[in-house]
Structure formats: structure tokens, C-alpha cells
């Protein structure tokens, strides 16, 4: 019988489920309870595919000592004139704080994965604000739940059970007391949980959101975005008539045509609805601590992502200092990638530039980015092998746990090492 850890916080998605039971034997996770399949795999496979300290020599990644890898990383950043620090989302907030300090120290740019997922959400909120709430408010009160452009049944697997569809809340109990709507370009497993599916034409979300706003303000509309007028009216009536409504939205809204304007329309729709009833909206954040990256950057620099320190103070400009744009234009001359795998997700042009410049990767596992790197520094897995804070998709902070020892130092220790070396010389 191994050691049992209870109420462990899951370091996978923005749901940050904190009721996991993890059993450890001989320094390895052998089983989990309450974990979704993705989480379970992350825990059980924690020791698989681990990265090794490597430095590229004559075009080949050669295994070296940790010391040498960290020295090389410091040297690359030191010699760079316009470096980029990118990622941050899959580590804890102390490491994120150090990453910001490093960016400030070297006068570089720093960006989180938010710039390629919910960046538009942030930009829209900066324009008009947002009406948000924690997930417990949804569990206890929401009788109307709308999933828009997201697929929690496959991406945020326990969201529906813990927060939004089936839980027994204080004032709403179970699925029968909630009305669930799914708005998307196609039916998915999420549509199967829904009482109403609204099929929107791809790229027409802005139009549909605007039509709903119009109906709620008392105007007549026809068919919009492939949705019949009658259905729009019905949905608008439900929104106005519920006691507590919420929209959860995902990449379908942030990364389709219109981007932050889609979110702007959604935020304003929700704002308008508060003239009639209580209505809220919350983004479905992906990585378990991408929300934390935004919090940390904001309290230190004032800005949530796409920040540059070239002038000695923080400057913010998505499109100018966001990672994809910096890379695509070939502007940065070195990169430090922390807790993310951009090569797996970025457009090819951006990835090509990453491969061209000296890139340092800090990652517990072998990733696509680590394969093109100049230096690879393996680290402990935050939330399994090291502690720290993570922020849930609704901003609730929780403390990640350490359940097994790591052969490698934590992100925090590695960044401290790099900073020490740079300040020392």
C-alpha cells in the first residue's frame, strides 16, 4: 500500500479540480481517483518522456550537466539584444514572477499562451469590462448555462459535473433545474448535454451575438448567422427570463474571425442582460495556470500579456509584443520558452524563426519545441513534483501539491539560477 494524497489539485486544465486522490508507491504515482482521463494520464505518466539537460553542439543536441545547460541559457540571454520569454501557463505563480523579473532584467519581451487563446478576451474586457463570477456561483444559482464556441465535454471534462450542469447547488439542484444551451458551428459531445443546440455559421458569431442584443433591446430581427429568427427570439427570452445566467466561451469565439470583437459583443450582451436579471460570463481557460500568468504579469507590470521592457518600464501592445508576431516578423534574436510548447501550436513561420535563433526550453518533458532548441533544461512538473499557486479559470487561487520527488529542479530554481548567473556577471 502506497502513500495516499487527498484533495490534490489537478495541474491540467483551467478547472483546477481539487478533489483528486493520488496514490504513490516507490516515488511513482500508481493510481488516481476522481481524476478525468486526461488528468489521470498526466499523473500516471509523469515519469515518461522526460527531457534531459542538453546543449546543441555542431547541430546536435548533446546531453550535458544541469550546470552547463543553465550556464549556456544565461549566456544566450546575456548576448541577446531583443530576447523573448514565452509560455508561463503550465507552471506555478512563483516561477511566473521570476520570469517577469528576468524579462525586466534583460529588457526583453514577455508573453503568455493567452496571446494565442484568450488574449482577445482580455483585450475586449479592457474595452468594456466584464460581468464575471466564481464557478460556485454557477453551481449554486445558475438556471441557464450557455456554452458558446467551446467543448467542455472533451476539453474541460469535469466542468459539467463539478460546476455547470449536474451539481447539486444551493438554489439549483442537478440538471433538471438547469437549462443548457450549446452554441457552436457543429454538434459535439457537449451538444449532447444541451437542452438546446444552436448551429451558428462559421465566422458569424458576432452577428448572432449582436442579433441577441438587438432582440433583448426590443428590436425585431430576421434569420441571422444561419439561425432562424424564432430560435434567436426564444434564446433571448430565455436569457432575459432566467434567474441567473452564464455564458462559458472558448476558442470558437476568441480565435474565429472577429476575435476580440466577438468577445466585445458577448460581454456587452451580458452587460445589457443585467438590466433584466443576473447574468455573467466566464472564459474557459485552457492551461491550468494561464489565468495565473495574467494575474502575475498584471500585478507586477500592469499588463496581462504581450509586455516589453526595452525602455526599462513595461510597455503593452498585443500584435507588437505578442510572441507569434515578434517571431513571425523575425524580430527577436533569442527566446526562453517556459511551460509551453509553441512549436506544436504556432504557425509555421513563427516556429521556423524559433528554430533559427538560440532558443532555451525549460520543460519537464520532451516537446516539439525542445527538439528545435539550443538548450534544453528539464524541470520538475509543477503540481506533481513541486508546489506553488495556480489560478482557476475564474481567478480562484489554489495551492498545487507535491506528491513525488523530481530528479530535476523546479522552474523556480532554474529561473533563479539563470538570474543569479546574469546578475553575477
Amino acid at each position: 500500500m502506497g502513500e495516499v494524497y487527498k484533495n490534490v489539485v489537478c495541474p491540467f486544465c483551467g478547472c483546477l479540480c481539487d478533489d483528486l486522490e493520488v496514490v504513490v508507491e516507490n516515488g511513482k504515482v500508481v493510481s488516481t481517483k476522481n481524476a478525468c482521463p486526461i488528468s489521470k494520464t498526466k499523473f500516471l505518466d509523469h515519469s515518461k518522456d522526460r527531457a534531459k539537460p542538453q546543449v546543441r553542439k555542431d547541430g546536435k543536441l548533446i546531453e550535458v550537466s544541469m550546470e552547463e545547460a543553465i550556464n549556456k541559457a544565461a549566456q544566450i540571454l546575456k548576448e541577446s539584444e531583443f530576447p523573448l520569454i514565452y509560455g508561463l501557463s503550465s507552471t506555478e505563480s512563483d516561477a511566473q514572477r521570476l520570469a517577469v523579473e528576468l524579462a525586466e532584467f534583460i529588457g526583453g519581451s514577455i508573453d503568455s499562451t493567452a496571446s494565442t487563446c484568450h488574449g482577445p478576451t482580455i483585450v475586449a474586457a479592457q474595452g468594456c469590462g466584464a460581468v464575471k463570477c466564481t464557478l460556485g456561483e454557477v453551481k449554486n444559482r445558475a438556471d441557464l448555462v450557455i456554452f458558446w464556441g467551446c467543448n467542455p465535454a472533451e476539453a474541460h471534462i469535469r466542468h459539467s459535473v463539478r460546476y455547470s450542469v449536474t451539481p447539486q447547488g444551493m438554489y439549483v439542484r442537478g440538471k433538471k433545474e438547469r437549462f443548457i444551451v450549446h452554441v457552436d458551428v457543429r454538434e459535439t459531445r457537449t451538444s449532447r448535454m444541451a437542452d438546446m443546440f444552436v448551429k451558428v455559421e462559421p465566422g458569424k458569431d458576432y452577428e448572432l451575438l449582436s442579433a441577441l442584443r438587438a432582440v433583448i433591446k426590443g428590436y425585431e430581427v430576421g434569420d441571422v448567422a444561419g439561425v432562424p429568427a424564432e430560435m434567436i427570439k426564444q434564446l433571448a427570452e430565455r436569457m432575459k427570463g432566467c434567474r441567473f445566467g452564464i455564458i462559458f466561451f472558448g476558442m470558437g469565439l476568441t480565435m474565429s474571425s472577429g476575435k476580440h470583437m466577438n468577445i466585445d459583443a458577448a460581454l456587452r450582451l451580458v452587460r445589457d442582460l443585467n438590466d433584466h436579471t443576473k447574468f455573467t460570463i466566464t472564459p474557459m481557460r485552457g492551461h491550468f495556470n494561464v489565468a495565473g500568468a495574467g494575474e502575475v504579469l498584471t500585478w507586477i507590470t500592469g499588463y496581462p500579456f504581450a509586455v516589453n521592457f526595452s525602455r526599462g518600464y513595461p510597455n503593452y501592445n498585443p500584435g507588437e509584443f505578442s510572441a507569434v508576431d515578434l517571431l513571425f516578423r523575425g524580430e527577436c534574436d533569442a527566446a526562453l520558452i517556459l511551460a509551453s510548447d509553441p512549436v506544436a501550436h504556432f504557425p509555421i513561420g513563427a516556429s521556423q524563426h524559433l528554430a533559427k535563433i538560440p532558443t532555451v526550453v525549460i520543460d519537464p518533458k520532451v516537446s516539439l519545441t525542445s527538439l528545435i532548441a539550443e538548450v534544453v533544461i528539464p524541470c520538475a512538473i509543477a503540481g506533481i513534483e513541486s508546489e506553488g499557486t495556480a489560478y482557476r479559470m475564474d481567478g480562484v487561487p489554489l495551492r498545487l501539491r507535491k506528491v513525488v520527488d523530481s530528479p530535476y529542479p523546479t522552474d523556480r530554481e532554474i529561473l533563479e539560477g539563470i538570474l543569479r548567473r546574469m546578475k553575477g556577471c
Partner: protein
Amino acid sequence: MLIKNGLVYDPLNGIEGEKMDIFVKDGKIVESGDGGETIDASGFVVLPGGVDIHSHVVGSKVNLGRLMRPEDHRKDPVPKTEITRSGVGYTVPTTYITGYRYALMGYTTVMEAAVPPLGARHAHEELNDIPMVDKGAFILMGSNHFVMKYVAEGDLEKLKNFVGWLLKATKGYAIKLVNPGGVENWKWGRNVNSLDDKVENYGVTPREIVRSLAKVNEELGLPHSIHVHCNNLGSPGNSSTLIETVGSIGAEMGGPGSGESTNETLKGTAERIHITHIQFNSYGGEDWATISSAAEEVAKTLNKKKNATCDLGQVIFDDATTMTADGPWQHKLYKLTGNKWYNSDVEMEVGAGIVPYTFKPKSLVNAVQWMIGLEVALLVEDPWRVVLTTDHPNGGPFYHYPKVIAWLMSKKAREETLGKIHKSALSRSTLPSIEREYSLYEMAIVTRAGPAKLLGLKNKGHLGVGADADIAIYEFKENDIEGSFSRAKYVIKDGEVVVKDGRIVKEHWGRTFLVNPKGELMDEMKEEFSKYYTVSLDNYPVQPEYLPRCEVVPCR
């Protein structure tokens, strides 16, 4: 360390402008010294470090305020130096800049006035990134599920248990109430409009919540009183709500404290109440067109009621970012202004709202608001029961405190501003006719000695032997009061010089103050917790890792 020949103002020890030497050793003020650094303070005034009793500097709501105002930050970028980190200032400064700017004006202790329990971990993370000052966190309880449940059941024992436990679990310092009951109703899109309106589903009234928490506060022996943001904040005619709230404490509850005995207040048996940002709750009139000052009436109430204290929430004519846990008020302000609006409700506990705002001298309402804050400060006779604040960043950013000091100390400074405001405002307040000018001694009371005393911080706010060596030294110029207090000549924090000639010379890390009252969670609370929260009880209390530097302040 020796601070030589300064003109010392130390109200808690009755010292008013005496030329004397102060000795410092190991971060404390001591009787006599044996060498070390000597600071020649000849011609300077020497004061205890400033204490801010109410400011919004960290946590989920403040950070949303930062997030939503990039346009604001661009007006005030702050570059890094050899010693200090970079950031932004203006209305919602970043954590580092917050610490530096407080220190530059000689403030060394700051209380974050509104922390939702579920977000306490976040608040402490940010507090740990505020350099220079000591700090603490007030915990929001006025619309907490368990609080309202036990108030409804009339079970003060359970309430006491819960409150004590919650303060320990959140590593908080004091009990904060914001629009008690109204914030719960806001979760259904509604509010309460009087002290006797019912909170939906709970059946309790704001009056019962305030009175019960006031009682529990004293039974737990907490160093500070309950800290109250009243119902109906921001609305014309709301002074009656404020006066009723003050009146509800210590009356009818029976037992000690029901009278107005100063003795009992001092012995710590009477119930106390601190009304925060009193300006926002001292409005007469019936609507925005007829709004007027009710400061005279409010001051009269405070002059009579010795167990009530207040801070100002003074308005500054400048940009502000309003942010409170008062969700329904923030929604109203959004509807009034059309400015952008953030709302953030927290399960089982509280909510928050944020709306950018600009106070303009030519706006009638803003002009009246500006007059009220100063009027209260000048009409309340006892300076020990008034504290200077702007409710940062609601009335304006904290670094404008020296402006407020100038208005309080100089009728001429007030007249200059009175000449710039909306003319119709002049007849709606008694401010133009008030002659009183604060002395330096009184100024030292409302900015350091008083708040330290109200917070129960025995080692703060004075320069007696044993006090923390937090000292501010200013070059005081009568013809430039604002300038005198904007940039301290020297600031000493825990015995080290951290500011010299208006510049940060050393980054220093202060401590976080906590309380450790009695109170344990009972089984029935645990059961309900697991039913309705979305986090496990195990993961709820703030872990010791978030308090790397802390000090427990004993209960009374």
C-alpha cells in the same frame, strides 16, 4: 542610529514639536544609543511613519482594476533603477510602485481593506510583492453565507467560532463589512435600501448583521473594530443610513457599551465601529440635483458617539478607479456614467465591482463630495477618531494624501480650490465658513498616531521606547505643505534608511500583521462547506508559505 535635533511630533506620547534626539537599535526605538549612523534632522520635523487604515492595493479586485485600465497605465510608466523595480503608477499602481510611493511620502504601514476570503491567497501573494511597508488584510464578511445563517439563527457562539476560524484561515487582520446583506442580494441582481430590508433567502437585515459582528468582534477581542462600508453608499440622502448604522452599535444590545462611556471603550468591552470612507455616506438631498452635504449632522453624531470612528475617503479632483465589494453600487455607477464596468461575484462570500471615474471640480456632485470629506474632518472635534484616507483608488490615488493634508492645515489652500469648483456647490456645505486649521500635531494624529491606535498596533504610530523604528522626516515649509509631505527627506523603516531626499535608497521587505483569535470550524459548517463551495475545505485555508514575514498581533 541617532536622529539628532529634529522637531519631534509624537502625539501618542504627548510630544508636540519638541527638539529632541531619537535613538534606534535593531529596528526599534531605544532609550539611548551608542554610535552608529547619525542623521542631522536640524530644521526638519520628525514623525512616526504614516499608517494607512484603508486602501485597496492588492487582490483579485485591484488586479482586475489594473487589467482593465491599460489606458491609465500609459500615463505613468515607472522605469527600473539600480535599486527599484519597474511598473506603472497612476490610479491603480502595480505592487512594487505601490510600496515605493507609500514610502516616498513617509508611510510605512498599509492595510488592504477588502479581501474576499476565497481570494485571500491571491491577496497575500500580492502583499508579498509590495516592498517597503508593513501590511495587513481586512476580510469581507458582511454577506458571507455562514455569517448570515448564524445571525438569522441568533447563534452568536457559532458566529464567533466561524468568524475566528475565518480570520485565521485567511490570515486576515480585521472584520470588514461592505453593504452588509446588499451584496448577497446583488447575486440576484437586487440590493437592500435600508438597515431593515431583508436579505433574500436568509431573512436577516443589515442591522442585525452589523450588530452581531460588532458584538462578536469585541468578544473575540480583535485589535481593530468592525470596519464598515455602509448600505446605500454613494446615494443622495444616505447620511440617515450612516447615522442609523452608527446608532445601532452599542444601543439595545444591552450590557456594557450601550452607553457612551469612553472608559468602557478604552477597557475594550464596548462595541466599536469604524465607518470607512465616510464622505461617500454623508450625503443630504433627495437626488443628484438636490444633493448636499450632511457633514454637520454626521459630525454631530460622531462627536456624541465615542465608540465610533471614521476615515475620510476624501475626493481628489483627478482620475480615479472606483472599486468596492459593493457590487450593486458599482452597477449603479456604471449606469450613471456609461464607463466600462467589471463585476466579480464570489461564491458564498461576497462580490465586487470596478468602474473608472473622474472627479471634476466643475461637476456639482463632485464638488459637493470634495467639500464633504474635508468638512467631516474639520467638524469632528476629536482628531483621534478621524483618519485621513482617499479610499484609494476610489476617491483618488493615495499619493495625493499631501494635498489633503494641505487642505486640512490651511484655509488658504481650501479657498484656492473652493475658487475653482462649481459655484452652486458653495451653498450646499458649511466648508467655506469653517475657520479650523489642523496643527502639525493634529495632522500627525490623523495620518499616523490615530490609525495605529484604532488598528491596535501598539508598536506603530509613535516614537516611544519599544516602538518599531518607522520614522518619517520632512522639511516642513508652511507655504508648501503639499510639497513638504510629498517627498520625505528621510524615511527609516525598521531602523534602516530606505528613503533619502525623496529617493528610494534601499528596498526593504515589511511584515504582514495577523490575528489569532479563538474559533474552530464545527462539523455542520464542514458539511455545508463541502456541499456549496467548489473547492475542498483542505485547500481553503491560506498556507503558511504565503506568510514568509509575519507578526501576530495579540487580541485584547
